[in-house]
């Protein structure tokens, strides 16, 4: 048993010397980081539809790009950013709840994507790849774009942490008290567009929705501290991506599906052992911790 395990680890290390596998591993860490950081906002601002809306925007953009002989990634990114640019002011100006605006945009973009698919005469494989993702066929440019967008997101969270906390707590109150809430909120929407479109090639437009919700939902089970919340979410996201990739390699499974199923498993474990669901135990442990530190 131990020998089998040792051989498997040795084999995995050996496999890591291949360039496509290296790229897939790096993409997993970057995808896990970027999606899980965003999932903190998605979960705490209760906007789960933003993931599907953005991924359909990217998908519709990519299909349109293919129709017009334009780079599908770029056209996907442009449409994502356009949706981000419309969503904030539309929700603010029309007094509509952001979820309703997202619902409208989502259905419109889905219609647009399917219209494009219907008109597209040549092979649709390129467009469909963006829905399912393909970790093992990533290019160097995909990794560069993912690194860039993940770095911007990490920097954004790091630099504006206190403003983010204020906006997450109550956006209107933050605005009334002089916090640039619209700047933070709109920046988040644009970053979501960037993260979703740059991750289409990794987990794909359909499955990214799970990574934009589950790491945040996992952290929500475990902590009342926002800094820990970001860290736990990132850990859950990276853990799901990396373990999903390993499992997909060992058992020859589709990588995107393995990643999402691992994210669900991590959430289920967090939910079962959540100290928030057992407040008495949580308080006892906190009290004993406080006594120890005195």
């Amino acid at each position, binding site marked *: 048993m131990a020998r089998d395990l040792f051989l498997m680890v040795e084999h995995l290390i050996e496999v890591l010397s291949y360039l496509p596998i290296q790229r897939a591993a790096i993409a997993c860490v970057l995808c896990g980081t970027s999606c899980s950081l965003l999932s903190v906002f998605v979960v705490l601002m209760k906007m789960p539809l933003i993931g599907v809306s953005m991924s359909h925007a990217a998908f519709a953009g990519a299909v349109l790009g293919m129709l017009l002989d334009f780079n599908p990634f770029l056209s996907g990114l442009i449409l994502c950013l356009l949706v981000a640019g419309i969503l904030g002011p539309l929700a603010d100006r029309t007094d509509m709840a952001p979820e309703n605006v997202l619902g409208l945009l989502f259905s419109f973009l889905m219609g647009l994507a399917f219209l494009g698919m219907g008109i597209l005469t040549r092979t649709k494989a390129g467009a469909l790849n963006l829905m399912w993702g393909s970790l093992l066929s990533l290019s160097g440019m995909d990794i560069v774009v993912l690194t860039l967008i993940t770095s911007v997101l990490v920097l954004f969270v790091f630099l504006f942490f*206190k403003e983010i906390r204020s906006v997450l707590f109550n956006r209107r109150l933050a605005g009334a008290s002089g916090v*640039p809430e619209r700047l933070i909120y709109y920046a988040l929407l644009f970053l979501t567009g960037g993260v979703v479109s740059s991750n289409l090639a990794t987990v794909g437009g359909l499955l990214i929705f799970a990574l934009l919700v589950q790491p945040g939902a996992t952290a929500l089970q475990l902590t009342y501290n926002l800094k820990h919340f970001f860290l736990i979410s990132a850990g859950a996201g990276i853990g799901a991506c990396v373990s999903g990739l390993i499992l997909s390699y060992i058992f020859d499974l589709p990588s995107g599906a393995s990643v999402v199923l691992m994210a669900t498993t991590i959430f289920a474990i967090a939910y079962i052992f959540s100290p928030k669901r057992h407040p008495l135990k949580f308080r006892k442990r906190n009290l004993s911790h406080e006594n120890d530190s005195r």
Partner: protein
Amino acid sequence: MSESMIELQRITVRRGKRWLLEEINLAVSRNEFVGIIGPNGAGKTTLLNVIAGLERFEGTLRLFGHRETWSRSREARLRVGYVPQLFDIDRSFPILSLEAVMTGAIGRLGLFRSPGRREKEKATYLMQMMRVDHLADRPLGQLSGGERQKVSLARALLQQPEILLLDEPTVNLDIAVQKEVLNLIHEIHKQENLTILFVTHDFNMLPAGMRRAVLLNHGKTVFDGDINTALSGDVLSRLFQYPLETFERNGKRFISYG
């Protein structure tokens, strides 16, 4: 004449074909404590939102002598504190009570500066003043409605405002807690030398120290003057379109709903 802190001239707010506020005129001086009173849908919260910079409007608004638009400067926002009605927050939401109070300092600190020991000490002092300092390390979502409103008051005070806007801060609280919050508001007015606008629809739950009442109905001002004159059966019956009587006990006037 004392300095005018808030000046509204012909302020109108429309939503579609509906008028939420119609040509409201109001001037409030420094350190005044004004009650904005009226039935549901009278436009009280909308009026407060206009002053807080949360609502687009037509007309002229001056704060501290300067003309302001809806999207006003950060400096103008810092000088106006806002306590909303009790709002829902998830029990699991990752924010402790002290952290919630500390969010009041974020606008004043500006970008790229973190709250330090000074802000934490001031926040702790304000939580003591509001008698919720023992709850500092408790998740905000696990506090009772009254406790959350006290945290909300402490948060608004940490902003160091000159004007404090209170939007039905006692609504949905039980009577004893309402009384406690009202006493705290009276204390704040005395100690902090603030100009306060207090929105309510409950005449029996007015804080001590309030001398002036502005009665609103259907988005229009129907009375602006001394609180004791406002608390007359005739005025209130007309406002609420319901027969109301007033009576005095221990020097305070109360409303009987019949």
